[in-house]
Every structure is written in structure tokens, then in C-alpha cells.
């Protein structure tokens, strides 16, 4: 893979995604074998720069970098600091001057990692930007699917939840369709953005339609903090009409995988029975996350002294 930054899957080729997944699968094997002292990033410094709260993603990136032998520094800035104080461009220049090799950024606004990447010499990895992209989440989802299905070609993936505000849905849509999978999406109309069909999604008007013949069913978090504007009446009503439960799972293929980027609202996006059931891969996704982030960091910095 020859690129400076990983900003999203929209501008990645199928070959690049395939390469990341292949390396990621290998990393996952090593992790399972307890190998956590790799040297891919030895002598390199990695900074995580998070303008949004995150425990799992930041922790996952930090461990990935550490397992590869990097020095890691974490900066957590309150969202409010985006609008006051130092500009992103100036922050980037400062981090660059400190000889950072990789900056991993999460930011509440779409396009921010791109602005940073244009400013700094360091590699930039997007750890989620507003409603734009979250490439490593999609990559870890795809890695988890590949472990189960060998190939993603022809796979039917259903994504249900708050699609409108979801960078995960979009990165998955780009990545999955590039590798030949088909993606169905369903949400209350208030939580469906415009133009998804033009981006290659199968936009559905019912849970049953979305789940029909699905190999993978992915729930997306209903972000409680984003539901002030009356997108739906209550969580109870959401669960009843839009949530995934055992009954609607009958429309999916038998044994279809249950996935969720977490954290889950139990009984809202998915029932507890499905979350804890045999077909759930939610915990597996977490390990995939560390592995795929190791792959991304390793590939981006490969061949550098």
C-alpha cells in the first residue's frame, strides 16, 4: 500500500482494502497466539488526537501501536476546544514539529482529517470524522466477515440503525461494495440521508426487506444525544418498529452473523438474546479492531526508517 494517509475507504482501491485485510488476518493470528511484541513500528512515535469522547477506539489504536513497538502519546481534547483556542492547522504543525510519525485523529467534523493531512508530514489515520468516515471500523467489520466467509464477494449485509449520523455505515458501504458485497440499509426515514442509492446501497422500506436473505446483520448505535430533534418518539417505539429481534431475524439466512460497532443499547438496536447468542460476533469485532489497526499502521509506515 502506497499512501501517506488513511482518511476513508471512499478513495481506497479494492486492492488496498484487500491488502489491509490480509495483513490484518495475519495480525489477528499473532494476537491470538499471544504475540504482542512486534517491531513494525519500533522507534516510531504515534499520537492519538481525539476531539470526541471514545474509549474503545482510542484504546484499540493505542494497543495496536504499542503491540507494534511504537511510542504512543494520547491527547484528549474536549469537543469544545475545536471552536476555541488553537486551530487544527496549528495543532497539526506543532505535532509535526515534535517528529510524530503518525497522527490518529477523531474529530466531530467531517473533512477535518483531510485538513490535517494536507498540513502535516506525518501519516494521518482517520479514527472517525463527524458524519463522514470511520475507515478502521469498517475494516474491522470486514475482517470479521472475512474470517467467517472467506470471501466478501456476493455477501449480503444488512445495516440498520441511525444511518444518517453514521460514519460507520458509509465506510462499510464503500468498503463492502468495493469487495463485491451488497449492502441493504434501513432506518426511520428521519435517520436516512439522501442519495444512498446513488452510492450503491439498497435502500429498504422495511426491516424484512433489509434482512431478506442477509448473511450479516449489523445494528448501528442510536446515539441518544442526537435524538433531541424528534427523529422518533421513544426508544421503545424504535425497538418495536426498527430494532432487530429474533422474529425479524427469520428473514435473514439461518446462522446470519450479528454485528454492532458498539457500544450497544441493549434491547434497542438488537435484543440481548441476539447480542449474547451464538451468531453474535460483537466481541470478535473488538479483537479484529486491534488487528486491523495494526495492519493499517504497519502498512502506512512500511519501508520507512
Amino acid at each position, binding site marked *: 500500500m502506497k499512501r501517506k494517509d488513511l482518511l476513508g475507504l*471512499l478513495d481506497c482501491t479494492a486492492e488496498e482494502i484487500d491488502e489491509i485485510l490480509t495483513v490484518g488476518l495475519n495480525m489477528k493470528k499473532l494476537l491470538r497466539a499471544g504475540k504482542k511484541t512486534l517491531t513494525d513500528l519500533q522507534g516510531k512515535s504515534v499520537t492519538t488526537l481525539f476531539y470526541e469522547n471514545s474509549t474503545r477506539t482510542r484504546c484499540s489504536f493505542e494497543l495496536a501501536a504499542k503491540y507494534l513497538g511504537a511510542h504512543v502519546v494520547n491527547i484528549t481534547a474536549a469537543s469544545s476546544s*475545536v*471552536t476555541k483556542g488553537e*486551530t*487544527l*492547522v496549528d495543532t497539526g504543525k506543532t505535532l509535526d514539529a515534535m517528529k510524530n510519525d503518525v497522527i490518529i485523529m477523531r*474529530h466531530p*467534523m*467531517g*473533512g*477535518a482529517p*483531510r*485538513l490535517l493531512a494536507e498540513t502535516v508530514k506525518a501519516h494521518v489515520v482517520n479514527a472517525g*470524522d*463527524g*458524519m*463522514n*468516515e470511520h475507515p478502521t471500523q469498517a475494516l474491522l467489520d470486514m475482517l470479521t466477515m472475512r474470517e467467517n466467509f472467506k470471501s466478501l464477494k456476493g455477501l449480503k449485509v444488512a445495516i440498520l440503525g441511525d444511518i444518517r449520523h453514521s*460514519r460507520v455505515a*458509509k465506510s462499510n458501504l464503500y468498503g463492502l461494495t468495493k469487495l463485491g458485497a451488497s449492502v441493504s440499509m434501513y432506518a426511520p426515514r428521519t435517520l436516512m*440521508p*439522501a*442519495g*444512498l442509492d*446513488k*452510492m450503491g446501497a439498497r435502500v429498504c422500506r422495511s426491516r424484512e426487506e433489509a434482512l431478506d436473505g442477509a448473511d450479516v446483520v449489523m445494528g448501528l448505535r442510536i446515539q441518544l444525544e442526537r435524538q433531541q*430533534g424528534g427523529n422518533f418518539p421513544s426508544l421503545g417505539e424504535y425497538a418495536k418498529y426498527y430494532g432487530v429481534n429474533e422474529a425479524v431475524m427469520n428473514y435473514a439466512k439461518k446462522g446470519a452473523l450479528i454485528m454492532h460497532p458498539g457500544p450497544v443499547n441493549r434491547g434497542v438496536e438488537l435484543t440481548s438474546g441476539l447480542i449474547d447468542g451464538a451468531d453474535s460476533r460483537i466481541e470478535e469485532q473488538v479483537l479484529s479492531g486491534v488487528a486491523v489497526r495494526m495492519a493499517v499502521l504497519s502498512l502506512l509506515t512500511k519501508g520507512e526508517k
Partner: protein
Amino acid sequence: MIYKNAEALIGGELKKVDISVENGIIQQIAPEIKGEGYDLKGLTVLPGLIDMHVHLREPGFEKKEDIESGSRAAVKGGFTQVCCMPNTKPAIDNKVTVSYIKARAREVGLCKVQPIGAITVGQEGKDLAPIGAMKAAGAVAISEDGKSVLETKLMANAMQYASDFNLRCLCHCEDKSLVDGGVVHEGYYSTLTGLKGSIRAAEDIIIAREICLAESLNLPVHICHVSTYSGVQLIREAKARGVQVTAETCPHYLTLTDEVIKDFDTNTKVNPPIREEKDRLALIEGLKDGTIDCIVTDHAPHHEDDKRVEYNLAAFGISGLETSFALSYTALVKSGELTLAELAEKMSTNPAEILGLQGGKLEVGAPADFVAVDLNAQWKIDPKEFVSKGKNTPFAGRKVYGRVKCTVVDGEVKYEEK
């Protein structure tokens, strides 16, 4: 002074004439006037362009623009008269600020600057600004600019009260609750970029409200920077049933579609947002059939500091004075959509009529405000050449036709290309 050998737009037709000027007034327009003069051979002369919607930023935001730099940009763009919006600091919501702007513009002495007063004190949407006093000091219209007066009753009062002073309300149409923090047009490209979009109805609902008020009260109203196809249709239908509504649009809505946001270029961030091809085509259609009366720039200069940030945080606006004529000429006249005479109406005659300003026509007895352009000159837009402090344009690198060579205000050459 005699301006000689001009191909001038007189009464809707291009005629080879000389124009003699005394005391700032056109004295004679004739095929050959004896005497020495200023040679305009090879150039086309149009009535001085009038932009009824600009932001000059002074007082308060002189880092972005001031009356001097804005006036310089205006005459370079062929404008002899500009009307400046009240979102300054302090806002133009009092007679002192109106007087200050008039005085400062006279000192600068380039183009005529006509202040537009705020509708409410501090543009806060609560109490009516001193509309009578602002008119007495020289305000030519009132506008809440950059937002709508949210309280409908207050808007009705403003229209009625302003009409006593023969002032028109210029309405920025935006339903705040529907926009809800949106920064681009909602559609495929807002989903693609993850930038929050706002739907056409956010603009159309307030256009419809202002039309309803104008119709109910039998008063005139002017709709600012129309950007939606549906807004054009609302205005067209209102005009057809006799509502006194006039409207403007801007070069960027006539030349760009929302695809330009896909690379997060903050120079494409403007309010209302750049919309889709069907909106662009409808706006051109609206210009052709008279639904849209004027082309304005909504000149909104910003410092690089306000644009070299995250898209959400970037300031709204495009620096437009120095590109407006060429963009409009290329997109509308060169392409055969409008005649040159029609373009001059949209960019000069109609704004003058709507606001009751002098100018807008080349005729004996009128102020000698005109612009000489080389219609065949092709050039590439380069923000580095802007004299405006605002270099913020999404048109960098675009090839256009029509170059302003000379701008004359009250008979004096205020700009000429070296």
C-alpha cells in the same frame, strides 16, 4: 470630458457613440462629438454596474475588508454603486453608522456606497431599528441580512413601517429550525461528505412567508439570493398574480452545483448553499423570463484565517465583486441565454429601479456612471490578483470572458486596467 469611440448600450442597443460629460452628468450622446477625449475604441460601454448586495465589513471587521478595499474591488469589477449589508459591528442599525459609511465612502471616493439598514436593533429580531432616522441619513433599504426576522408579526410590522419611508425590505430567507446547523445543500453530496445539509424548504418556506405578507399587505418585498428551483417557482407564481415581489440571485448559483463541496473546499461554503443542476437551470430560466430581476454578488470577503479551518467552522461567503461580470457574461450571454442588454438590466437598471437609485441607464441627464469592458478578452480567475482583502473564491483557475477595462463614476475614471 468626452469619452470617445464607445460601442455603448443605449436604450437596449449597441451604438457607436461619443459621450460628453460635465459636472458628473451625461450632457450629450452622439455619433461624433468634437474635441479631445478619452478613447474607448474597441470597448463596449454599459451603464455602471450596481450591486445591491455586498458586505464591506466596515465598521468592525476590517481584517476581512474595509470600505476602501471593497470600493477598490467594486470599481475593478465594473461597479459604480454598491449597497452594503448591515451585519457590521456595530450593526448598521442607527443613523450614525449610516452616516459614517456614507462619509467614509466619499472620502475613499471610488464608487458610490449605499448603506442598507438593519430591520431590528442589533439584528436581534426584537425591536425595530430606527428606520426613519436611517432613511434620513441615507439608507436605501432595510434587511436583516444573514438571517430572517423569525417573528412573523414583527416582519409584517417592518414591511408596513418601512413602506411609510418608501424603503423596501430585502429578505434573506432561512427557516432556522429547518437549517438546524446545516452548512451545505442536503443531497447526495452532503451524504457523501458527511457535512450536514439543509433542504430547499428551509429557504422556500420563508420566501413563501414574505410573499404572503407582501400580498396580504399589498406592499413590495425583495427576496435575496434565491438558490432553489422551487423558490423561483414561488416567485414566478406570485408575480403572475400581481404580488409586488422582486428577487435576486448570484453568479455562484448560476455557475456551480453542490458537487464542488466534495473536496471540503471551504471557499464553496456559502449561505444559502450551492444546490443542484436543476436549481441552477431554473435560476437561469428565472432570469430569462423576468422572475429573477437582478444578479448580485453577495460579496462576502473573509480572511484566510476564517477559511483555513474545518468546513463546519469556516465562515460562509464568497468574495465576488471582481468576478461577477465575467462569470455572468460567460455563463449567460456568451452561452446565448441572455442578451447583453438583458444582462445590463439585471446588473444595473433593475437594481437601480428596485431601490430608487440614480443610474442604471446611459442617457442624457443621468449620472455619468459607466463601465467599459472588453467582451472578447478571455482570462483566468486568480485570487492573488484580487484587490479585495477577501481572496475567498471557488472560481480560482476558471476561464472566463469579459474583462473590465475602465470604470467611470460621476464622469471620472476611477479604475482603468494598466
